[in-house]
């Protein structure tokens, strides 16, 4: 390899020397130089290149290259997501990755012109975060927590939960009707919504079924995505629901409202009016751009801190009522059976939770020494006040550093520097929120709820580090 590298460098130098002065003028010769370096090019395809022609490789459009790479790698690592524990799951297996073109990477990007701009910025061909599974119309689609840094989830990697597919709605025909116990039943267009004074906030949405597979059918080979990928954190922009309520005039006697989606399941939830007057929002933008269809385009209800099922996507109707409607998704589903022979209903607030996203399966620690243990913590009741990290399976704990900003009802990134001595270890994180609530152990959690509990799986997660450095999900921790 080193010999080839030297040869390539010399060839490139010769090409440039022959060319006289300015690099980049004699393109054929430069491509010749690239040709020699092609064996050095980092091939990001899992399959052998279909063509070794320098011209075809060099002329491969960036879009083709990226599309092929993304397609090939989608689900390559993550296709094993066990979503079957989610109710109504109808996911198909991730399709076999298609053969992908290779991307020739110049040995020295300072010696050849770079790529030209395109209308949309694409990810590096070396990065391939992916939702999983694909093909879901009724069930969960998990966000790749292990691929993300910081706290904001890119919109195209936000988790999804569908009940009968992704509705595609023409924004020019979109309407939101607010009626019921109001003075002025009103129809708002999207343009109307955008003319109200907007607000922007960052907050987490978590499916209350998040963590079900890890609880009911845990495996050592589970990624953070497979354990807790039914949560995501975005910056949302929209109109406060309170503003709309003031515009239509809420009548005395209204205590709840029904929110109904415009999808093929007309997903509907009853929400206390108090929440609507507090921090609820009709959101039309996410991370600076219009919502993605899978996240509710053109508008969705956002109830910060409440279970994701209540944040009705494609929201088309809000009805002020004098009591909950008792829809299927607040009776038969999204209720918490308890050991005492009852089921907790309208358990809307998501309690504090955290998960280490690195080191985590399928990572392998390459060496002993210092490693950042980092992850995400959040609480539907406010801000995270502290996160503790244990490297000995919960026997001793150390306070982790919280990255600013620490926002209420939003992802908070924590970091703990850990000096690994090569011995087996179990890594855990434990979040505390502003109410004093401390994330429980699995034992405390099961003891409080009963083993048949079916939502709000917020107990402490663990990752096992073997002496060889391999990290796996500590299902029994």
């Amino acid at each position, binding site marked *: 390899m080193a010999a080839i590298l030297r040869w390539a460098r010399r060839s490139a130098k010769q090409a440039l020397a022959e060319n006289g002065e300015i690099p980049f003028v004699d393109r054929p010769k430069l491509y010749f130089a690239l040709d020699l370096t092609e064996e050095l090019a980092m091939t990001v395809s899992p399959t052998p290149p279909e063509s070794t022609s320098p011209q075809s490789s060099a002329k491969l459009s960036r879009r083709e290259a990226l599309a092929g790479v993304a397609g090939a790698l989608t689900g390559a690592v993550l296709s094993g997501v066990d979503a079957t524990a989610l109710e*109504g799951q109808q996911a198909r297996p991730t399709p076999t990755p298609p053969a992908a073109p290779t991307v020739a990477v110049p040995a020295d990007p300072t010696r050849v012109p770079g790529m030209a701009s395109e209308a949309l910025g694409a990810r590096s061909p070396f990065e391939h975060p992916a939702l999983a599974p694909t093909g879901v119309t009724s069930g969960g689609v998990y966000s790749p927590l292990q691929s993300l840094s910081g706290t904001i989830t890119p919109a195209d990697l936000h988790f999804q939960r569908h009940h009968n597919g992704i509705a595609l709605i023409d924004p020019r025909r979109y309407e939101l009707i607010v009626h019921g116990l109001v003075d002025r039943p009103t129809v708002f267009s999207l343009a109307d919504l955008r003319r109200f004074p907007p607000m922007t906030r960052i907050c987490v949405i978590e499916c209350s079924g998040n963590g079900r597979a890890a609880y009911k059918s845990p495996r050592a080979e589970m990624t953070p995505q497979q354990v807790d990928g039914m949560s995501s954190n975005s910056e949302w922009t929209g109109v406060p629901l309170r503003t709309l309520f003031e515009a239509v005039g809420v009548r005395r006697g209204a205590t709840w409202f029904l929110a109904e989606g415009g999808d093929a399941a007309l997903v509907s939830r009853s929400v206390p009016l108090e929440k609507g007057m507090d921090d609820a929002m009709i959101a039309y933008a996410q991370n600076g751009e219009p919502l993605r269809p899978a996240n509710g385009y053109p508008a969705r209800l956002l109830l910060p801190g409440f279970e994701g099922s209540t944040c009705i996507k494609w929201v088309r109707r809000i009805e002020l009522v004098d*009591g909950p*409607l008792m829809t299927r998704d607040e009776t038969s589903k999204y209720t918490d059976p308890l050991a005492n022979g009852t089921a907790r209903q309208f*358990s809307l607030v998501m309690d504090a939770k955290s998960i280490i996203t690195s080191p985590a399966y399928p990572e392998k620690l390459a060496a002993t020494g210092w490693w950042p243990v980092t992850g995400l913590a959040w609480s539907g009741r406010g801000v995270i006040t502290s996160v503790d990290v244990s490297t000995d399976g919960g026997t001793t704990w150390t306070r982790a550093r919280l990255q600013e900003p620490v926002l209420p009802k939003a992802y908070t990134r924590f970091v703990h520097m850990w000096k690994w001595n090569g011995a087996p270890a179990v890594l855990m994180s434990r979040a505390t929120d502003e109410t004093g609530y401390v994330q429980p152990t699995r034992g405390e959690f099961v003891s409080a709820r009963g083993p048949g*509990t079916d939502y709000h799986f917020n107990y402490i997660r663990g990752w096992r580090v073997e002496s060889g450095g391999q990290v796996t999900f500590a299902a029994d921790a």
Partner: protein
Amino acid sequence: MRRHAWLGGAALGVALAAGACKGGDDNSVREGAMPPSASLGLGRPASAQELATVDRDVNPAGVGLPAGQGTAATGTKVYLTRCASCHGVKGEGVPPNPALVGRIPGDSFPFGADVRAVRTVGNYWPYATTLYDYIRRAMPIDSPGSLAPDEIYGVVAFILAENGIIRHEEVMDATTLPNVTMPARERFVVDDRRGGREVR
């Protein structure tokens, strides 16, 4: 560079001096207005007709149930053609689609304690009205909204009868359905979590 820094400093000094002269009483900058929401005049009145089209939810008292009726007998044919492929001919469920039929002896409610207990309409469904509401919204999944009221009442009657909650010949309509008492009616309790140290 030095010259620019000096100029910048001078400009800042002038600005500070000007600010000092006017103090906090600079009337050239005013607070932005925040008009009352209702005064913005946004949206248009919803007509009774369009409300009737979309306001189709059913509450536990039966408000919202349309005219029409059905029995288990009339619902059987609809169920077998439109529902059974996913939920089984007797409502036993076709995984991953849920079972609709099943009671637990003594109508106990072991779901929190026993991970094997399977939840159905018969044992984990507090209000009969929800059946109508949900089927009208979302079922059948390949053609939601396609069932007529009589068909929905029939399917509701079929599911309730198969669960042994009503008799097969009982007519379900806007009057009778809200009066059906579901076995799990008293099992649902309001969330008692409040944050704080206690794990619930």
